[in-house]
């Protein structure tokens, strides 16, 4: 006789448990759903860069084609980094699981996924560290929070270290100052040892290595793009600006992320640079060789970042300039401000940056010899050197998004605000716990601004967008200003989804609009060819 089937009672049927069955994090394997991860690094790019294990693969496949003995490669890599980077060893040892960081990560806030808590993201690596590098882990195993390194762990690392934007918001709240960005950086380095990167990083890195910039723009494309901006500036202002390229003997070299040379609203920011420098009569030059301020090598490995960064000083030396100005960018500035000097410095052949207009000596850049355009412009404004008409920006209600790296990485908090106040009449801050050193990431930093991971980006940027929504509803804010090329590329999509009607602009674009240039014709449009308030014929 067949066993009797026990039918649930009607009362039992109505008892639906909405809870997802909870498993311990170590027993919860990672899933790869389209929209939430980036494509894997391509064979050709890894070959170009001489990185290990070049092959065609997809994160959605079961087999990631990792060479045999990979466990040894990873563990040896870990041992090497533990001895090389004291900070990494300390970060592995000192976390007390206080949880202060847990709810500070934009990815955790927007997903509720525990593995996006910074503490647990570090634990993904720490558990392996414990198993192989500590006595307690070797003997007590799981009891001491240790686990074996296997393929599931490797996939989990790849998933979650490419769900961290290295924004360092968590480290602001950590009582020990554990820098999760550094844990992610090491995690990504280890993954790269067995050929695991994402396409959106390894592609630009390979481009940058071969062509000088992430987008792979060749010299004629760079000069061509800038020339067409020059044409647009002439249409708008009646003034033809004359940028020079690769000019030896110029006083200053200007380096900006290549995102400013292509795509909106980056190009309008770039037009702002061109207009500002022309108006000042600055003796400066562009370089078609050092044509990338950003550095996606930084999201690959320390060595790769150093390799890509090298061209900046090399070009400054070749051209014989005195010092360097850098454009609006985020991670570019963490690299330049904190790493360039030790990697490729000291740049003894350069001079400490001194503004030829105001005479200000930028002591803060005494060693690197390179300053941020916002420092330079804010200094000009402080000394009343610019003729500005902020009413040209009167149709804008502006808020400012602190990009993670300039704010937390180099303390650039006041300069962009000073500039915005001088060039706009309507400026509104977002709430205190979402700006300055507590700023929320755009959700697309550290190489995650691909298109295939759009859902992931919309999640990661949700806390930022939520704060913008607040000032939009309260003050009618319609423009999100920033000083980062990745922001300019990534935030338009974020705003379209969460806050339709809010535009995105670089701070220097606002400057370009407000700047009254000597001998200019009466302007009727802004740099986007939109009518100026009260001046347009198309209203």
């Amino acid at each position: 006789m067949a066993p009797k089937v026990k039918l649930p009672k009607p009362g039992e049927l109505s008892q639906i448990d909405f809870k997802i069955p909870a498993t311990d994090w170590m027993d919860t394997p990672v899933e790869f759903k389209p929209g939430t991860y980036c494509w894997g690094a391509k064979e050709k790019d890894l070959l170009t860069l001489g990185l290990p294990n070049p092959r065609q693969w997809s994160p959605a496949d079961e087999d990631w084609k990792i060479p045999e003995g990979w466990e040894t490669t990873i563990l040896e890599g870990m041992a090497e980094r533990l001895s090389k980077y004291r900070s990494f060893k300390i970060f592995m040892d000192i976390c007390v699981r206080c949880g202060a960081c847990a709810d500070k990560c934009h990815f955790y806030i927007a997903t509720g996924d525990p593995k996006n808590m910074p503490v647990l993201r570090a634990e993904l690596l720490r558990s392996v560290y414990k198993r192989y590098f500590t006595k307690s882990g070797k003997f007590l195993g799981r009891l001491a929070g240790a686990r074996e390194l296997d393929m599931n762990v490797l996939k989990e690392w790849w998933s979650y270290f490419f769900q961290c934007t290295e924004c360092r918001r968590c480290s602001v709240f950590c009582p020990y100052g554990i820098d999760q960005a550094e844990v992610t950086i090491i995690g990504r380095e280890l993954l790269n040892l067995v050929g695991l990167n994402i396409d959106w990083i390894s592609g630009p890195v390979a481009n940058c290595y071969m062509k000088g910039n992430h987008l792979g723009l060749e010299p004629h494309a760079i000069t061509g793009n800038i020339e067409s901006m020059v044409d647009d500036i002439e249409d708008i202002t009646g003034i033809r600006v004359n940028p020079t390229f690769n000019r030896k003997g110029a006083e200053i070299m200007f380096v900006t992320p290549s995102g400013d040379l292509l795509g909106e609203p980056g190009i309008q920011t770039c037009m702002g640079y061109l207009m500002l420098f022309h108006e000042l009569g600055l003796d400066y030059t562009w370089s078609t060789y050092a044509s990338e301020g950003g550095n996606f090598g930084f999201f690959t490995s320390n060595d790769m970042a150093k390799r890509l960064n090298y061209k900046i000083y090399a070009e400054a030396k070749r051209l014989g300039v005195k010092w360097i100005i850098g454009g609006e960018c985020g991670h570019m500035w963490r690299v330049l401000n904190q790493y360039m000097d030790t990697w490729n410095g000291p740049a003894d052949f350069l001079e400490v940056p001194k503004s030829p207009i105001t005479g200000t000596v930028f002591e803060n850049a005494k060693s690197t010899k390179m300053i941020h355009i916002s420092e330079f412009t804010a200094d000009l404004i402080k000394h009343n050197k610019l003729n500005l008409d902020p009413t040209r920006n009167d149709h804008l209600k502006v808020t400012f998004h602190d990009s993670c790296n300039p704010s937390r990485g180099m303390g650039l908090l006041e300069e962009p605000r000073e500039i915005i106040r001088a060039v706009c009449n309507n400026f509104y801050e977002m709430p205190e716990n979402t700006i300055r050193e507590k700023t929320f990431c755009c959700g697309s930093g550290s190489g995650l601004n691909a298109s295939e991971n759009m859902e992931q980006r919309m999640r990661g940027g949700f806390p930022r967008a939520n704060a913008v929504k607040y000032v939009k509803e309260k003050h009618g804010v319609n423009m999100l200003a920033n000083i980062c090329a990745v922001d300019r590329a990534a935030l338009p999509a974020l705003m379209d989804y969460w806050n339709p009607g809010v535009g995105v602009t670089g701070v220097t674009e606002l400057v370009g609009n407000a700047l009254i240039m000597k001998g200019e014709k009466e302007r009727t449009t802004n740099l986007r060819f939109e009518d100026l308030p009260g001046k347009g014929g198309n209203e």
Partner: protein
Amino acid sequence: MELFFRDLLKERKSAIVEKWFDAIIATYPMDTSGFLKNQRDQFANPIGHTFSNGIESILSTLIEGDTFAEGLPFLEDIIRVRAIQDFTPAKALNFIFMLKTIVREELEKEIRLGQISSALLGFESKIDDLALLAFDIYVKCREQIYELKTDELKRMTFTLLKKANLMSEIPVQEFEHNDQK
């Protein structure tokens, strides 16, 4: 809606909202620290804030028997969040149907006494309408995700295509000129 039923719902509203909120939070991975539920700051916890604000407004709209026009922004806020999270379409929208279960549980005694059956049916039909609206919003959000990808590509490449004379744009002035004729 019968007056008695409406008053009953108004009376139990806070209990219903609380249970509804808990049920929604339970659709997320184990919230052991209670962050999503307990962190009240709207900027520190935008998900919790969006949900708690939203469901209260939606319930008010349902109780008052208003058209959904006013409750919709809140509904959209919630769905916009769930549309980009780790949910299948069914799971993203199941929070609407949870309300039926919760109301039935909350008013169990009155239902047993047969006091409110017709009003309850009417109320549940309203929830069904809400679910249909939610479906529209959800699909709109998903479609937008795909649009964002193409828009982003256009922003990146349009200038180049124009420059290479592969694409051109008719200036606004030309249209105006024609209008004046």
